[in-house]
């Protein structure tokens, strides 16, 4: 507990109204999505923070950091706070909710660089950028995530990575309140220049603060970040009709098209993914698993259940790649569409017509699909099948409806991870090592096998097993797929099964050399993977000890439970 004097000291730093130590507020910051994954007891509640503070400036954060250097408390900053890694690791943790730091400091239109504070959300920045013909990469938890967090502090796959890269690699300078309380700016802005590089002079010291994952608030607070922006050569705004939750675009946007590509096999979808990258056709792409396609075709869970139970989707849509093609000009757009069509054809795939298909149609084709193991393989062998498919038309509204769904996923980031929750109360993820497009599918296959027994027992949602979601990066240079599953947060048996799946997958990725998974961060995970990866975890602990000798920052998501944590807070966990 903070003493009266300590509270006064904190209030003197940020102002009385921005220090919250009342129980309701602290409890509100003690529950997160999947927070039961953080303790062996399967409790929904995390540690209750000692206080919640909402600072406004780096200087205030610096003073708060110095306070924790002197006292038996730790800081844990977060920006939008959606993911469980924002949770406090100890009852001695003071959470820094950075929502008051919400300014877009600068947009350099000519050089395509933005400088933002922690609470600038992807969708807000994107809305502003489109007015200037620019865009920003957003990770697939959705448009409500913090751009600073995805760039400097956390991690995340993102659908526009096909052309806009992995967000850690889009960092162009960062301002950092270090664990000592010193405010340091790395890279070009630290030397007085504009925000265009985080590397140098000399060694790229930014390597300390951001690898595949970031430090998740375990090594100081990042207060500004420079972000590399990309082109947007379509309309600055769009208009919709309809109402929540289903808005529909009034019309197509210029130089922009979305395509749903279906392939009969893994080999064919991966071949196509590489070729699309080489031709730079894919402004964004997403390997959309069959269950998510069915979800996108329906407006509610009853429809989803009916549609999924036809059995058509697992056979028809096992290997679907959704792609956004975006041209700088009409000519370029036309070239890219032509290239895409050629690639799909030579890869033995089929472009689904951009038409919302009436659900009753699936009941009609159900018997045909039951007869064959891989009906798409047969369909794609029909002469002129693409031309026949292209002639299928229903209505303009049905076309716009499906187009809008794809647009919101592939471009606008308005319906990403959260959209996938609709079918259950909770979602877990696993595997998700980053390397090649081919390796992504190996991971998807592996985790589908791990999930299957739990699906058969009814412990987790029957999504067909393969809910591998991801795409390409840097025009096919890199690839990523993570293994998602859906479970019931209200059912202890479902939670237990989920935890078992994720734990098995962690060991499986080691045995199968499937890379370092998305969950491989924080003390227990680094302890598990480090010995198989040149003991990288030892360097993390050395960095923490050297830069934060007084444990001023809660490091459960970085180097492990902090020295200051209570003994019962130093236990392991399985993050998902």
């Amino acid at each position, binding site marked *: 507990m903070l003493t009266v004097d300590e509270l006064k000291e904190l209030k003197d730093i940020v102002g009385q109204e921005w220090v919250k130590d009342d129980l309701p507020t602290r409890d509100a910051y003690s529950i997160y999505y999947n927070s039961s994954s953080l303790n062996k007891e399967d409790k929904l509640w995390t540690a209750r923070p000692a206080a919640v503070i909402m600072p406004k400036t780096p200087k205030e954060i610096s003073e708060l950091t110095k306070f924790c250097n002197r006292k038996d408390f730790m800081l844990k900053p977060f920006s939008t706070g959606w993911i469980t890694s924002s949770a406090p690791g100890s009852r001695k943790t003071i959470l820094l909710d950075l929502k008051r730091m919400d300014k877009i400091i600068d947009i350099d239109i000519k050089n395509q660089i933005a400088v933002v504070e922690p609470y600038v959300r992807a969708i807000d920045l994107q809305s502003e950028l489109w007015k200037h013909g620019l865009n920003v990469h957003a990770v697939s938890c959705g448009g409500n995530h913090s751009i600073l967090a995805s760039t400097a502090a956390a991690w995340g796959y993102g659908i526009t990575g096909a052309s806009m890269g992995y967000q850690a690699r889009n960092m162009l300078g960062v301002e950092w309140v270090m664990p000592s309380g010193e405010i340091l700016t790395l890279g070009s802005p630290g030397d007085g220049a504009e925000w265009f590089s985080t590397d140098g002079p000399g060694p790229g010291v930014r390597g300390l603060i951001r690898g595949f994952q970031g430090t998740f608030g375990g090594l100081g607070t990042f207060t500004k970040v420079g972000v590399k922006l990309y082109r947007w050569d379509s309309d600055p705004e769009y208009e919709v009709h309809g109402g929540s939750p289903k808005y529909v675009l009034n019309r197509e946007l210029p130089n922009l098209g979305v395509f749903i590509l279906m392939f009969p096999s893994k080999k064919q979808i991966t071949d196509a993914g590489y070729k699309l990258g*080489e031709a730079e056709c894919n402004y964004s792409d997403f390997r959309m698993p069959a269950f998510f396609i069915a979800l996108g075709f329906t407006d509610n869970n009853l429809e989803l259940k009916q549609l999924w139970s036809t059995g058509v989707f697992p056979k028809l849509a096992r290997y679907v790649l959704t792609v956004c093609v975006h041209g700088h000009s009409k000519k370029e757009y036309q070239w890219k569409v032509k290239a895409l069509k050629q690639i799909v054809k030579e890869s033995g795939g089929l472009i689904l017509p951009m038409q919302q298909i009436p659900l009753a149609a699936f009941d009609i084709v159900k018997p045909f699909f039951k007869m064959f193991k891989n009906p798409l393989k047969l369909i794609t062998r029909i002469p002129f099948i693409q031309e026949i498919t292209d002639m299928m038309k229903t209505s303009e509204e049905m076309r716009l409806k499906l187009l809008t769904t794809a647009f919101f996923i592939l471009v606008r980031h308005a319906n990403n991870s959260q959209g996938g929750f609709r079918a259950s109360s909770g979602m877990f993820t696993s595997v998700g090592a980053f390397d090649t497009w081919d390796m992504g599918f190996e991971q998807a296959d592996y985790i589908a096998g791990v999930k299957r027994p739990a699906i058969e027992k009814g412990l987790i949602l029957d999504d067909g097993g393969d809910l591998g979601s991801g795409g390409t990066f840097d025009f096919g240079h890199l690839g990523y797929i993570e293994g998602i599953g859906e479970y019931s947060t209200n059912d202890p048996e479902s939670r237990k099964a989920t935890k078992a799946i994720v734990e098995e997958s962690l060991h499986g990725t080691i045995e*199968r050399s499937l890379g370092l998974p998305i969950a491989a961060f924080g003390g227990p995970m680094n302890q598990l993977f480090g010995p198989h990866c040149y003991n990288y975890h030892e360097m993390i602990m050395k960095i923490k000890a050297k830069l934060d000798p007084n444990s001023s920052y809660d490091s459960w998501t970085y180097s492990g439970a902090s020295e200051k944590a209570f003994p019962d807070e130093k236990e392991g966990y399985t993050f998902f």
Partner: protein
Amino acid sequence: MISTNILNDLGQNNTVETSLDKLKTYEVSNPLVRSGRTPQCVIKPKDVPELQKVIRKAKEGKFGLVPVSSGGPHTKGGISCSANHAVVDLADWNKIPWVNRRNRVCFVEPGVTYGQLNNFLQGYGMTLPTPLAPRDTKSVLASTIDREPHIWPRMQWDFQDPVACTEFIYGTGELFRSGAAGGPGTLEEQRKSKGAQKMPMGPGQTDFQRILIGAQGSMGIMTWISLRTELLPSIERPMLVAGDRLSKIIEYVYEVQRPWLGEHTFILNRLAAAMLMTCGNPGSFDRIRNSLPEYICMQNIAGFERLPTERLEYQYEELKNMAGGNGLKLVDKVGEIEAPALLKAAQSPCGPRDWRHVVKGHCLSIFFLSLLNNSEKYIAVARESARAFNIPDEQIGIYIQPVIQNHACHIEFMVPFNPDDNHEVENLKNYEADVTERLIKARAFFSRPYGKAAEMVFKNNPGNTELIRVIKGLFDPENILSPGKFNL
């Protein structure tokens, strides 16, 4: 002194050179740069375990190690060391152990050169973007881990590209692999799971290799790197835009780069262009230079495996319009320079000596990063300073290279000089000090500090410099690797 026992021990399995003539070739060959000490010996380790042994022996014998991968002459000063040291020469490690077309990746050992690598990759329909006309013996590894810019900025997302993964040895002698190569599993096991050692970050929450990149050998010794390679164009139409007004060319480059149009691009002033084009034939230097306008910009257009001709055609139309919109013309030839010849010169090894050195025997190079629209400001700074040292504008070569998809740019000023003319050398030393200071004041960012910049730039951001010291203590606690580098 390095003890005879240690030299004998290391000499059992490795080549150890101690002859003064040989050692002198590892001194910095630049009268403008503080030369440091002559190395005590040159060690050419047989393999990785022997290299680890060399590091352990250096710790035992209390001498430093300076890694070298390129052949001489060494002019920038990266290998300069004022402490008692041995050179670890890895230039003979020149294998390309693995290549994979599907994932556009290859592995190179430290001694692989650009000419060697691109000849090899051609057989796979691939290429690696090159710096502007690298020396014949320039190590690909040394160049890329120094963040040296290359001439295909559209293909560079991040400053550490094209480096994908690395294997390196800490100053403690421990071996490490970074990025996806870090594990789990061996490289072969990872490939069996369809990994290809492309992901550069990690393992985990640290970007280990980024700390070695730009460190000039002071944080670890790399034994191989994997590189992201690109498709070789199947059809090309190199073009030029040129003129006396840089501002027009800059506007054109912004317009082209924003939507990722075109391929290789760079801007040279007429002195730099003539230097590059005549490095094999200095006799034609004046003729070529006098034929050129003030600035010339390479604009390559290409098609690859997919609809190459149609791609080239639509891009040509767009680029022609963009040039016209900026009062420029997209042309095949400017003065005595034909676009294909310039592109070829830019992509090919330039010979045993740096092309900048051919005109007068040596060249002062001052380079830094900024934004493209700051170029003219920095040219004015360089010229203003030069006037104080009686260096006319026309004796300053200018090379402007957009990097990371034109979100930043490398700006380089080149002043050719006669290394045997003491007066000229002294004048240029003073010019370098003055102009570097002025540029720093004008917010130039010396990301890759050499020469005078290395002495000045670390004072700009003391917190960052202290952090480098902390990392040095973690990666090389005994200060074995390039001791004294960056005053660490």
